[in-house]
């Protein structure tokens, strides 16, 4: 193999005991780029994503949902029922095999299962172990367990999403589940690099709340320094106007337009074809436009009402005005820019056949990358992992099966 064929994380081994979205997304980055990632599951405690759609052709089934498969590409599947002592022993062998051990349960769970960091470092002194949960491993609320919408509320994202005259809408589904995996993946990559250079492993407590707060840092400082609280404001900016999602021709079709400078405002006035706006002193400055936002919105809405969102976007962009169609999944699938970035590679899923997946979100020039293989079926690679990685004999595997350790 030529050195240029070598994948970035070739040779890195990860035992992924995490579930739902945060842990599995974090390890997916490494898996897609060459790491050997063993995703550990149990039939006794199936990933809650299996019951969430979208299901291929609307036919429900554990491995038919993209909520799981699009987040677990390039991994191998192992089943272990950690409530059996035989499975605990196999888990320890996996822990001594691996470089990185990731888990995302309520604090104390791994200790209860007999595979916490104290145990892990005994069988593998240079191991990197990552525990990620909502609140972190210590503190009075460490046992707080919930779904992503609970986490989004606690971390401050609900209050700032929605309309000032209504109760908070909150971000789409599980917002901390999209904020934290990239940060966590970067931390894991850095820890792997540190281990490569020094041989040193470590334990990492990664609280999803604490990682998530960073995405609100300016507003938290605005409170601690200025005593000023930011709350939800629809699509309006507190600093520049006009900004909004404007209704276009068709059913529930919208185009976002967001002016941030006098130059962009001049462009928008030109697009709207209403010279009166240019000469009206109330709209000449940003603060004037913020004060008269409703009136400007009425003018824009009148103009957008009979046009398609694509038309609105093109006309605005032609004058340098930031504008973008509010795209749905169906629009995104036909977005020429995403197509240019080869964003939807087809992978031949063992359960549902060839289906589009999300491609890599960044692009490394000269490296033809993308998810390497579809997500594993539950326990799909048991034999390969137990024999080749852990060196178990056929007899040992049979005993494990009889004990129910592989369920």
């Amino acid at each position, binding site marked *: 193999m030529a*050195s*240029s064929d070598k*994948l*970035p*994380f070739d040779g890195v081994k990860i035992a992924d005991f995490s579930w739902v979205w945060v842990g599995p997304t974090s390890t997916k980055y490494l898996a897609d*780029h060459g790491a050997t990632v063993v995703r550990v599951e149990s039939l006794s405690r199936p990933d809650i994503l299996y019951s969430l759609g*979208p*299901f*291929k052709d*609307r036919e429900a089934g554990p491995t038919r949902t993209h*909520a799981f498969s699009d987040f677990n590409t390039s991994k191998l599947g192992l089943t272990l029922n950690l409530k059996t002592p035989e499975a605990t022993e196999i888990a320890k062998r996996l822990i001594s095999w691996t470089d990185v051990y990731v888990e995302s349960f309520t604090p104390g769970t791994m200790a209860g299962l007999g595979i916490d960091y104290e145990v892990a470092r005994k069988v593998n002194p240079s191991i990197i172990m990552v525990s990620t949960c909502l609140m972190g491993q210590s*503190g*009075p*609320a460490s046992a*707080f367990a919930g779904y992503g*919408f*609970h986490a*989004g509320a606690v971390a*401050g994202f*609900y*209050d*700032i999403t*929605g309309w000032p005259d*209504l*109760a908070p*809408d909150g971000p*789409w589904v599980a917002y901390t589940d999209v*904020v934290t995996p990239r940060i966590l993946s970067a*931390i894991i*990559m850095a*820890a792997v690099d*540190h281990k490569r*250079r020094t041989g040193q492993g*470590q334990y990492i407590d990664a609280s999803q709340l604490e990682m998530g707060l*960073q995405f*609100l840092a*300016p507003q938290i400082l605005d*409170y601690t*320094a200025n005593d*000023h609280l930011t*709350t939800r404001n629809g699509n309006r900016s*507190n600093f520049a106007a006009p*900004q*909004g*999602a404007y209704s276009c021709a068709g059913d529930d079709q919208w185009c976002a337009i967001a002016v*941030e400078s006098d130059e*962009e405002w001049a462009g928008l006035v030109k697009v709207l074809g209403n010279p009166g706006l240019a000469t009206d002193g109330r709209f000449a400055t940003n603060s004037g436009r913020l004060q008269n936002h409703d009136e400007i919105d009425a003018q824009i809405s009148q103009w957008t009402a009979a046009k398609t969102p694509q038309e609105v976007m093109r006309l605005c962009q032609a004058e340098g005005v*930031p504008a*973008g169609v509010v*795209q*749905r*999944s169906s629009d995104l*699938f036909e977005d*020429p*820019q995403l197509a*240019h970035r080869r*964003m939807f590679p087809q992978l031949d899923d063992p359960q549902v056949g060839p289906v*589009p997946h*999300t491609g890599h979100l960044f692009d*490394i020039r000269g490296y033809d990358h993308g998810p390497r293989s579809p997500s594993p079926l539950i326990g799909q690679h048991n034999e390969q992992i137990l024999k080749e990685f852990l060196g178990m004999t056929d007899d040992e595997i049979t005993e494990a099966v009889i004990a129910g350790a592989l369920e």
Partner: protein
Amino acid sequence: MLSPYTVLDLTDDKGEFAGMLLGDLGADVIKIEPPEGSNSRKMEPFLDGAPDSERSLRYFAFNRNKRGVTLDLNSDDGKLALRSLAEKADFIIESAPPGEMDRLGVGFDVLRQVNPRIVHVAITPFGQDGPYANFAANDLTLAAMSGQMSVQGDPNRPPVRITVPQVWLHASAEAVVGALTAHARMLATGEAQFVDVSAQTAMFWSMLHARLAHPIQGSNFNRGGSVLQLGTLSVPVVYECADGHIVALPSGATMVKMVHWLVADGVVPEEWIEGEDWPIYERNLFQENAVRYPMEEVVDAVSRYIKRRTKAELLELGLREGVTLAPVSTAEDLVRFRHLEERGYWLTAPLPNGSEVRALGVLARPTATPMSVRLWAPALGQHNQEVLGDMLGLSPASAAAASGRKG
């Protein structure tokens, strides 16, 4: 973890969190600004509300763990200094419009000649090329074009973004994952790497399982606001309490405990306790089996109970009883959250007006290589002498010419 590495951070507001994350992970980050300062220095919120390049809390929030240097990249001295710094660096991160770095003569093709092991990361709205590469864009239009807005907000209002800008933070975090992946590839191949980060695709990930809903199931997901869609059920999850809102799921698991509180409070009669098989309540609803108390009645009872109590009371109660009741936190709630206090999360930061405030703590807690804040955000050109003089050995005259600052 990344202490052997040097990062040149040439980004503006679009990428400053990337350099910060690398700095938090231990890298020596040199923030390179134009002589007039990064555009983010002009961004709200400002300390004491006073617009001043040393008082932007936006800048302060995302430039910790960086040394600050000014370079005039329009001058030959400035370009030369950048090339000299690139010789000593491992990573360069920039967020210039596509082609801009090449036009200035400091693009990837030039810098890789200077340093054949450099990892160059470019953050732009849509990527370096493609049909939308030169579109004007900002947080709102990218939230729209990435698809996130299409599933966010009240169905009777326009699609809505998160009020506090998020897009560049996702792009920045993605850039760090890309940088560390490319660094691993550089180690494998021995070649310089160029990473092309698109904010649109980074944000696209935040649609989670709605991303590919259309190609997989043949239809888009719709925005539901504060109502959660569970199969055919529509369940409100946001409840008004005495001092704001909380998020709760009135599921069977919640009701097993909560029904006792409702009875004790006189919200519902005692027969509610035995009147329903609460542990399987939502299964019965899903399967359209007969239930004694329809969902609306349960939601109404829960609403009345919650309305009488504060966020803090409900959180404490939930933690004690094992029921997930999530406060819709504001910055004020977060700063007062006892859990973060007891975890020692908050740091004290000196501000330019001489005051000290609570500032955000570290992202995670690795044991062997702790993350810390070694430096708060630099004043404009604070480290010009240290970097241009001491590190590069430029004469005072050359350093002044390169920095574009007098004296």
